[in-house]
């Protein structure tokens, strides 16, 4: 499996660690309420299809990368740096 790092190019997935859905970029405000925080921390759409998730290029440039990926086929559609914000 290859992950396309926006900086380093396609690299073996063993250089990366996986965190979870890219919704983790949208941290709720402290006062956003219990439901918002529960959703952020725990609940997931968990689609059998295209999703966006977060990978860290640990063994490479240490960038956090948002990967648009199909969970049913493992096909990868695109990637971008997490620090560049939403697509």
């Amino acid at each position, binding site marked *: 499996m290859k992950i396309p790092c926006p*900086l*380093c*190019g396609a*690299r*073996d997935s*063993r*250089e990366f660690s996986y965190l979870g859905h890219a919704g983790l970029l949208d941290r709720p405000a402290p006062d956003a309420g219990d439901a918002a925080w529960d959703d952020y921390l725990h609940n997931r759409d968990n689609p059998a299809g295209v999703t966006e998730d977060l990978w860290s*290029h*640990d*063994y*490479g*440039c*240490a*960038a956090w990368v948002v990967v648009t990926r199909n969970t049913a086929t493992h096909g990868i559609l695109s990637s971008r*740096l997490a*620090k560049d914000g939403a697509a």
Partner: protein
Amino acid sequence: MVKLTPTDPCADLLPVEHGHAVLRAVAPTDMWLVAPYNGKAKAAAKAAQKLVGQGWPDPGQGALSDGRGLLFFGHAHALLVGVAPSKDLMKSAAVTDQSDAWAVVDLSGDAARDVLARVTPLDVRPAAFGPGQCARCDIAHMQGAIVCLAPQQFRLMVFRSMAKTLVHDVTVAMESVAALGKTA
């Protein structure tokens, strides 16, 4: 006053040679991580240009000449090699001394790329990874960096504490490549 004497993580282990590959220790030199502050990338590049004669490296780029250079070293960093940062550079970038943080070895010879293929998933075909290129990558399960110095010469870096593992794993690969060469 006490006198501190330096030690080198690889010096006792090297050089080794098997078949058409040689692994040598690299003498310690200045190595500094450089991270430009927000909005200071141009100034940092200019300061670096003065120091090493080359601009800010693009991702995957980095060359050394006369032991000096600036290597792409991560999403936020370049590695300044062979010279300490100037005041100018420090005004525009955070700098961190890493001169002692790395075990640094040079792998060279006709079999060097075959040896590398046994320790890193990086594409090291000549067309994909030639002189002037530098990669942060997995080296034998370690966070490392590889710089292509010449078509058959590579600088390998892993954190200092893992020098022994680096030398061991590369040496085993060199032996294997040499033995395979004999049967081919």
